[in-house]
């Protein structure tokens, strides 16, 4: 497949940006999927030693992929201490 891409790109140079953008999109999707599979706390691979990783999230852990304004590691507790 890669050979074909290279051969076609040599014949028609205008195909290069097309392959670049499609390759970037596909790589991005694959990387995001692997990120989710490996690091998302909702995923459990090892049911014996880490059965429920979602129960280990603390109040200062960031769950979302990208946080714009909120720094979760610096959040302070709002309610009173009991």
């Amino acid at each position, binding site marked *: 497949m890669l050979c074909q891409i290279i051969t076609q790109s040599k014949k*028609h140079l*205008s195909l*290069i*940006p097309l392959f670049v*953008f499609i390759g970037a999109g596909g790589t991005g999707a694959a990387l995001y999927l692997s990120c989710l599979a490996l690091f998302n706390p909702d995923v459990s691979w090892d049911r014996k030693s880490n059965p429920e990783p979602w129960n280990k999230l603390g109040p200062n852990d960031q769950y*979302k992929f*990208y946080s*714009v*304004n909120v720094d979760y590691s610096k959040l302070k507790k709002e309610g009173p201490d009991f």
Partner: protein
Amino acid sequence: LTNTNITDAQEMETIWTILPAVILILIALPSLRILYMTDEINNPSFTIKSIGHQWYWTYEYTDYGGLIFNSYMLPPLFLNPGDLRLLEVDNRVVLPIEAPVRMMITSQDVLHSWTIPTLGLKTDAVPGRLNQTMFTATRPGVYYGQCSEICGANHSFMPIVAELIP
């Protein structure tokens, strides 16, 4: 398809591949940033818990004291003239306007969804999970919504009514 005027225009093809791709990236990146920003909860004045049951809602106002009540749909026989069938409830959620209100939504049994379309709100009530949504209403009034996740026989008969007061 063999006319030489329409084949082999490499420069044109390169431009009309790169330019739309760049334009789309320039649209997508701020848009994704804004999408993540809509998730943020910034200093709510008020937090209310909304718990879905089969087939009613429970609201808990625990910020200042402990007010907890159930909100059942009014059966058609109990409606007053002018009331909306299948939408009125016995106890409405009373909320202030012009104040950021945070809703914490969950369920006691099966999936439900707490919705008020006119306020742009729809959040699933998932048992064992606490979902959060925030809104700031600008106009007083009575806002209606209905459960939006199939939850059994009376799924269509568990409305949500928010009364927003100044």
